[in-house]
Every structure is written in C-alpha cells, then in structure tokens.
C-alpha cells in the first residue's frame, strides 16, 4: 500500500508536468496545425535559465520562475518568426525540419553554455525534502508544490482563453482561420502568440520540475515525446484531453516502473503513441468524426 500510494503520487506529479508540456503542444497545434518539435527544448532551456538566475545569481524562486517563463515566451515567438511564418504551410516536410533544426540549435547552445560545468545540474529544492505522512499516504512536499503550481497554471490558462480578448481571438483562429481573418483578427499575430504561450507553459513546467529532477541538455527530448504521447492520447486539439492524457501517461509509467522494471518507463511514450495513432487516432476525448492523420 505504501509503495502503491508512493508510486501513484509520483505518477500524478510527473503526469501533471507531462500535462503542461502537452498543453503547450496542443495550444500550438490548435492554432497553427503543426507540432512544434522544439517544445521540449524550450522546456530544457527555460529550466537552465531559471537555474542560472536562482543558483548562480541568487535570485529568489518566484522571480526566477517569472523570468524563465518570459524567456520561454520569447523563444517561442522567435521560433514562430524563424521557423513557421516564412514557410509554406502546405510543406509539412519543411515545417517539421525547421522546428527540428531550432530544437538542435537550442540543445547545442545549452551544451555550450552550461554543459561545461557538469553533465547534470541539480536545482535546490524549494521545500523541505523530507517526506510527510498524510494518513497512510507518503507525500513529498515538493510534489505538492508542483501539483499546486500546475493547477494554478492551468487555471490561469483557462481564464486567459475564456476571459481575455487575446484568448478569444486565439480560439476564433483555431476554429476557422479564414473567418477569423475576415472579421479583422491578425492571424499572424495569433500564431506568434500561440507559439509564445506554448513555450511559456513549457518554461513554467521546467521550473516546477527542476527541483524534482536534474537538468541536462538532453532532458527536453524525453519530455517532448512524453508530452506528445499525452497530447495524442487526448486527441491533440483538446486542452482537457491533454491534461487527462498527461496524468494517464504519468501514472501508468510510474506504476510500470515500480512493479515491472524502472527501465520500462522510457518505453511508455512509444507504446502509447503507437497504440493510439494506429488504433484510435482521434484520442480519448473526441468521439465524433474521424480525422485524417
């Protein structure tokens, strides 16, 4: 029971982080129809920026969090300008290769800047690292902090979509870009905003994750694949679906890691992606019309 509750708890925590990465992917995919292959590298890069600010410059955690999110947004917006806006939207090969190129540039940049210090950088915990017992369940305070942070980000995000003018414009563009353009929405700006928002969410996820794991330049790809598995499980255009998908991937992976073998965890995204894309390409939360994938 203790093992199970521990695995469940850590599964929900990592699942919440996958959900954030998936959310970023879905925001971009909904608005623009492409998958941003550099999403994982935004995550990694923002995490390193937060590490530099927090550990090297001694800035406090909330401030470095905010700055990392801003850096994420800027990286995302730049990616839109460099690797999305100038490219013919029907040319999928070019669209994919351009964001793949961006992802490798960021990875190399991180290796050049931070790689020399140590292969793995550790981020100091923001709460006490000792586990506490809530009834029969063992909880690590850092996990609670991550869950709370994730929940807040999701709420802010939902409010942004429902309540603000920019959020509504994004929804309109996602629904029908041509119609949105006809009523005077500058869809190009919306695309920039979508890329930026997606990257900002990834940045926030990175700063939440950093105290739980170590940072290294290759971390981005793992999170990207798992985030994509989560997004695909939720149907790729559904925001609640992305959250649910993230939680499922996190919990299943944690249980498989605990009861079968820890190395199985790395295989989970492959299995999920293959099964969902081959057998149920519309994802879990969309039951209507078949979509061409």
């Amino acid at each position, binding site marked *: 029971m203790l093992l199970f509750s521990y695995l469940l708890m850590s599964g929900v925590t990592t699942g919440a982080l996958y959900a954030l990465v998936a959310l970023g992917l879905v925001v971009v995919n909904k608005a623009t129809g*492409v*998958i941003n*292959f550099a999403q994982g590298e935004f995550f990694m890069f923002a995490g390193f920026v937060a590490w530099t600010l927090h550990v090297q410059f001694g800035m406090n955690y909330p401030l470095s969090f905010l700055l990392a999110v801003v850096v994420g947004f800027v990286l995302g917006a730049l990616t839109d300008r*460099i*690797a999305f806006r*100038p*490219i*013919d*939207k*029907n*040319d*999928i*090969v*070019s669209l*994919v*290769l*351009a964001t*793949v*190129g*961006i*992802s*490798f*540039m*960021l*990875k*190399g*940049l*991180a*290796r*050049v800047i931070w*790689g020399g210090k140590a292969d793995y950088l550790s981020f100091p915990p923001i709460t006490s690292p000792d586990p506490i017992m809530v009834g029969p369940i063992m909880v690590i305070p850092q996990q609670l902090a991550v869950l709370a942070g994730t929940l807040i980000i999701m709420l802010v995000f939902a409010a942004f979509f429902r309540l603000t*003018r*920019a959020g509504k*414009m994004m929804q309109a563009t996602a629904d029908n870009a*041509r119609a949105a*353009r006809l009523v*005077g*929405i*500058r869809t190009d*700006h*919306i695309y*920039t*905003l979508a890329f930026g928002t997606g990257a900002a969410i990834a940045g926030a996820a990175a700063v939440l994750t950093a105290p739980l794991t170590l940072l290294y*330049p290759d971390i981005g*790809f793992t999170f990207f*694949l798992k985030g*994509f*598995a989560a997004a*695909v499980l939720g149907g790729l255009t559904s925001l609640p679906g992305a959250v649910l998908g993230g939680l499922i991937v996190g919990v299943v992976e944690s249980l498989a890691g605990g009861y079968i073998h820890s*190395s199985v965890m*790395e*295989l989970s*995204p*492959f299995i999920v*992606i*293959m099964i969902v*894309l*081959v057998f149920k*390409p519309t994802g879990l939360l969309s039951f209507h019309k078949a979509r061409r*994938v």
Partner: protein
Amino acid sequence: MFGRRNVMLALLALAAIAPPFANGYQIFVGNLVLIYILLSIGLNVLVGYAGQLAFANAAMFGIGAYTTGLLQVHFGWPFWAAFPCGGLLAAAVGTALSLPALRMSGLYLALSTLAFAQATQWVFLHWDAVTFGAGGFKTPHLSFDPIPISKPLGLYYLSLILAVLLYIFARHMVASRVGRAFVAVRDGEVAAESLGIDLLRYKALAFGISGLYAGIAGGLYSALLNFVAPEGYDLFQMIIQKSTIVVGGMGSVAGSVLGAAAIILLLELLREFKGVQEIVFGALLVGFVLFMRGGLVSVLQRYVRGWDEPLHAVKPRAEPAPLPNPEPQTSPVEK
C-alpha cells in the same frame, strides 16, 4: 563539360585512385563519406522521392550495425555472412514500419517513427544479454584473406563498390515506373491511388529500400569502427542524416552524394565539439529549409548545364494564396 555524369565520373576516379597515396585518417574519412552516401541515398528515396517524413533511419542504421556485429560475436559467423543479414534485417524492419505509415502521414508519421527510433535505442541499451548494453561491444577484426589488401583499404574499396552499385541502382530506380510512383505518392496520395498506384506496395517498397541502404551502411560502419554502441545510432545521428539530404537536395540522388560529402567533412572539422556540432547542424537545417529549399543541387541545376532532373525536381514552392489582408480596424493583439 561539368554536367552531372562527368563530375560524378571524375569524383569516382578520384575516389578509386587516391587511397594508396592517402594516410590512414584520410582513408577513414573517405570511407565515412561513402557510408553516409549510402545512408543519404536511402533516406532520400524515402523522404525526397516518396515523401514519407520518417525519422527512423538512424535506427535502421543501428539495426544493420548491431546485426552484423552480434552475429559475428555470438554465433561466430564470418563478416561475409553476417553483413548481408544486417542489411536484410534492416530492410525487413523498415518494411514493417511502413504499416503505420499507411494510416498516418506528415506530422504523425514523423512522430511515431521518432518514437520507434527511441524504442530501438531502448532495446540497444537495455537488452544487456544480447546487445551488451550502454557500453557497446567490439566486433572481430575483419580480414580480406585471399586478397592481399590491408583492412582499411579493403573496407574502403568494398564501400566504394557498394556505393557505386547502389548509386546506379537508385538512379535507375527513380527514373523507372517505381520512381514515378514514389513521386506521385509524394505529390498527392489520392491522385496517385486513382491512377492505380497501390499505396501499400509503394510505401512498403520505399521504407524497405531505405532500410536496406541504411542496414548495409550500418554493417560497413560497424566494421569501420570495430565497435558498436547505442550512442552511435541516436537522435544526433538522425539529424546528421537529415542534414545530408537537406543540404544536398531532396529528391536528387546526385544531391545525396554532394550532401553526404559536405556534411561529413564539416563533421570532421567540428569533431570534439558536440554542442557546436548541434548548433551548426540545426542552423544548417533551418537555413537550407528557409533559403535554399532544393539544396546544393538546385544551385547546380540553375547555373550549370547537365544537372537537371526534370521529373523529380523538388516540388516548387506553392505561391501563398492571395488572401486579402486589410489593416484591421480593431486593435491588434499585441502592441
């Protein structure tokens, strides 16, 4: 005079005559270029001609290398028996990978093959009993016994012969019915099907051919390094191979040769600086996609006679639909 045929023949003559006068390192780099020419041609058939954006080529390369190496180590097979098996197994796995490709296209195919490549890495890393895990293993020394030739030179000439044969094979294939079918599938699946092209067969064929080329290259690579380890077949390997076709020119077999040579020379110049390599190759991908969509070969096609490949030219960039874009009356989203 400087047409494709003459240039390629001159390069071949150089490649055939130079090695006895070159030092060991130069032969090694030359051999590496030949191996990447094989990889690049195979990938170009799949991505450039058949339009299937797959990311599993590095995994096929690894399967070829591992099969060739492991059959020698575990069963004591000679290289000459293990090497063809590596190529065939990679071709078989490649063909099997075309099954998901039938149901997916574009982004989804890219991601599922990426996940497949990651799963292959996982097998290389964790199936310790067979693959020796993360540390990799040494392959037996290759000898060309009855023929009196040293191992580096022998392997070089073996690679050269295979590269020339497979180059000629690819040139003829893409100019045949099969090549035209690939291009038709790339430019429009529905249209291709309505012309009587069996999508299943041609997609499987494209994946199988690229797997075969990658598997053969993998076998040669394992013999060249005398060593096989998982990190040789990872994502970075994938980006190198993708760069060779993007830089050389997608949808051009000759472009693959130019791209592979250019990329390997660049890689050797930047050896020891992994971070810089990643930045440079990432920037090359973005730069060529943005500014030179057809790769190096498109420049040659524009300015030098005798390089055109009319049927298989890269799809011209579609003009963006002339949508009216009036200045919006309302305030834009961001100031």
